[in-house]
Every structure is written in C-alpha cells, then in structure tokens.
C-alpha cells in the first residue's frame, strides 16, 4: 500500500516537472512564432511580392523546426505555426506595417532565410542577424537627392528633351523630392504628399515655358520620379502568380498615387494652360 502511494507521488512529481518543462518550451516557441510573424509582416511591408514572402517565411520556419501555414491579405497576415516536435500549433495575426520600400531588406532577409536553413543557425543567431539587417542605415539623403535629380534629368533626355530642359528638370526634381522627404518626415497623409510634391516639381519646371525649349517634355518628365514603379510591377507579378487579392490591392494603391500625381500636375497645367497650346 505504502509503496504504491510512494510510486504515485513520484509519478505526480515527474508529471509536474514535465508540465513545467513543456510550459517553458511553449514560451520560447511562442516567442519564435511571434518572430516568424514579424519577419513575414516586415517583408510584406517593405515591398516584396507575395509569393516570395510566403516562400521565405516557410523557409525560416523550417529552419526553426516549424511547419508554417500562411495567408496574406492587404493589411494583415494570418499564420498558423505547427511545432514539429511537440505538435502544438500557434496562431498569429499580425498587421502589416507601412514601411518605405527597401530592396536591401528584400535581398538580405531572403539570404538570411537560406542561411538559417543551410548553416543551421539557432533562434538567437537568426534574431540577432534580423535586427542587424533591419536597423542598417539607408542611403545618405543628400546623395539620394542628387541621384534622383540626375535620373530625372536623363529621363528627360530619353524623351528627346534638350540640355536646357534637362537642367530645368534637374532643379525641379530636386525641389519636388526635397518637399516630399520633408513632408514624409512629418508623417502627413501620403496622398497629400504626392499631390503637393507633384505640384511643386511641375511648378518649377514650368519655368521652361519662358524659354525657347522643349517645355512640354520638361513638364511631363518633372513629375515622373513619383511614379510608384515598384508596387505597379509587384502588383502584376502577384496577379500572374495567382495572389490576385494582394496584386489588385497593390495596383489599386499605385493607381491612387498616380491619380494624386496627376492632380498635382493638373494644377500647374491649368495655371499655364494658355502658354501650353
């Protein structure tokens, strides 16, 4: 009788220990699951097409010993994460943050997911590399301003504008892009940012109307630095690959931005309508 009780007690103690261990394990697993969700949301937020986001997330999940099921919507991502060892599942819903587009994050985070699988990194290493990648500084603002100005000026050249038009477009682009970055720092609604910076750029380039130059081309190209090329192309990629929902969302967003660009440009056109015809 006594022996039997003792055994029971022992069994109970073991049982408690098991529960505690599995709770600790569950806690770390939950942490890892949250990390996977954040990884997916970050990829989606910084402008990567949907199929790559899904592939990368599944891969990094695999490296941590999870089976990840994921469905991506325009504003949020739903993940169900199955721990292969304990067969527990975790559900995560995470909102997609609105981040500036970054190809650097795209390539480095994709590389991280491969490295995690191929070099068998543990969770701490992956997390450390992830923080390192997303906190790396962006390009110098002044250099960026110069590059964008040069780019738009040479764009003007591609449309057969002359040298004077190129100079005017260069100045107009720098003015417009400067206004855009300043407004973005103040977190103003991005539709308004697009209208204002398109108006500023086209207003500056309307100076071309007073010279004997290719003024129509100067006006047309001065706002083109605002064209949201990345969501346009990502949208088409998504639709072609079958992620129609996110694809159409991207295209709709890009279209709205283009409409805003056109509104900003049309203010200038209406102001100077007389000298354009």
């Amino acid at each position, binding site marked *: 009788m006594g022996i039997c009780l003792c055994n029971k007690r022992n069994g109970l103690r073991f049982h408690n220990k098991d529960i505690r261990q599995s709770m600790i394990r569950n806690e770390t697993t939950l942490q890892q699951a949250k990390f996977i969700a954040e990884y997916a949301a970050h990829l989606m937020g910084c402008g990567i097409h949907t199929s790559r986001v899904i592939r990368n997330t599944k891969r990094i999940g695999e490296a941590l010993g999870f089976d990840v099921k994921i469905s991506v919507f325009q504003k949020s991502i739903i993940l169900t994460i199955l721990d292969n060892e304990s067969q527990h599942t975790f559900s995560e819903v995470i909102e997609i943050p609105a981040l500036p*587009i970054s190809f650097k994050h795209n390539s480095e985070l994709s590389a991280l997911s491969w490295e995690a699988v*191929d070099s068998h990194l543990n969770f701490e290493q992956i997390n450390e590399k992830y923080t390192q990648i997303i906190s790396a500084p962006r390009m110098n603002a002044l250099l960026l301003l110069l590059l964008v100005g040069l780019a738009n000026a040479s764009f003007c*050249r591609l449309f057969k504008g002359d040298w004077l038009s190129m100079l005017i477009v260069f100045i107009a682009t720098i003015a417009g892009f400067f206004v855009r970055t300043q407004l973005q720092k103040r977190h103003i609604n991005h539709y308004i940012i697009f209208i204002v910076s398109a108006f500023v750029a086209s207003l500056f380039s309307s100076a071309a109307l007073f010279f004997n130059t290719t003024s129509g081309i100067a006006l047309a190209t001065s706002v083109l*630095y605002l064209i949201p090329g990345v969501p346009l*192309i990502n949208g088409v*990629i998504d639709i*072609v690959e079958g992620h129609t929902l996110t694809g159409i969302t991207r295209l709709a967003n890009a279209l709205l931005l283009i409409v805003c660009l056109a509104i900003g440009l049309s203010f200038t*056109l*209406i102001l100077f309508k007389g000298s354009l015809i």
Partner: protein
Amino acid sequence: MIFFDILFDGFFAAIAAIGFGAISDPPIRSFKFIALLGAVGHACRFCLMNYFQVDIAVASFVSALIIGFGSLWLGGKIYCPTTVLYIPALLPMIPGKFAYNTVFAQIMFLQNMDQPILKAKYMEMFFSNGMITFTVIFLLAIGATLPMFIFGKKAYSLTRRFFK
C-alpha cells in the same frame, strides 16, 4: 553616328535606373548591375523602335525579357533576388510621356466640352495614350517575370550563399 546614339541612350538610361532605383534602397553591390541592365534594356528598345520599326509594346516586351534573363544571370553572382535587379532597370522604360499625355488630354477634354471637334480630338488622345501606357507597363512586368517562371527553382534560390 548610329553607334553613338545607341551608346548615349544606354548611358542616360543607366543614370535613370540608378537614380530611380536609389529611392527604393537597393544593396550597394547591386548598383553596377542595375545600371548595366537598365542601359542594355533601354538601348535594345531604342534600336528596335528606331532601326527595325517595331512598335513600342513589342519592343518593350522584348527588352523586358532581356532584362529578366539578365537579372537571373547576374543575380546569382551577387546573391540578389531577380526583382531587386529588374525593377529599377525597368523604371526608365515606363512610358512617362504617354502617361503625361493621358492626363493632359483629360484636362483639355474637360476644358473644351462645348467644342465638338476639340472634344473628339482630346477624347481620342486620351484613349490612345492611356492604352499605350497601360499595355506597355503590363508587358514590361510580364516580360521581366517570365524568366522566373521558366527557371523557377533557380530563380527562387539566388540568395542561397552557404549551400554545401
């Protein structure tokens, strides 16, 4: 002279690709290939349109295809996904002038509602320019993405650096 025309076209396209790409913050190591792809793509379209009388839609599609294959080849060398290379390279080919003419025609249409001849002219201008803009952007994206479908497995593992 033709040679210099093509060279200049490629040169300015390269600057445009670098500048517009820089807005989207690409890795430093990818800039040289973005410039190269942008130059080759735009120069190719320039040749097709000016010396072979190909229309803008087909010429854009062919150039985008070349950029797509190029990004697949070069992306493997510097461990970059294809999109990182080909989206900036495609940006100089976006038909900005036609997009501008679409907006311009829309405004002029609304301002000339009472004059039937001008109204019809701007209506026609709006639709033809809008059609070109839409078709070219769509074909650019399709053309550059097509190689990714053909070489699926390779295209998906370009960033795989430590494979043993």
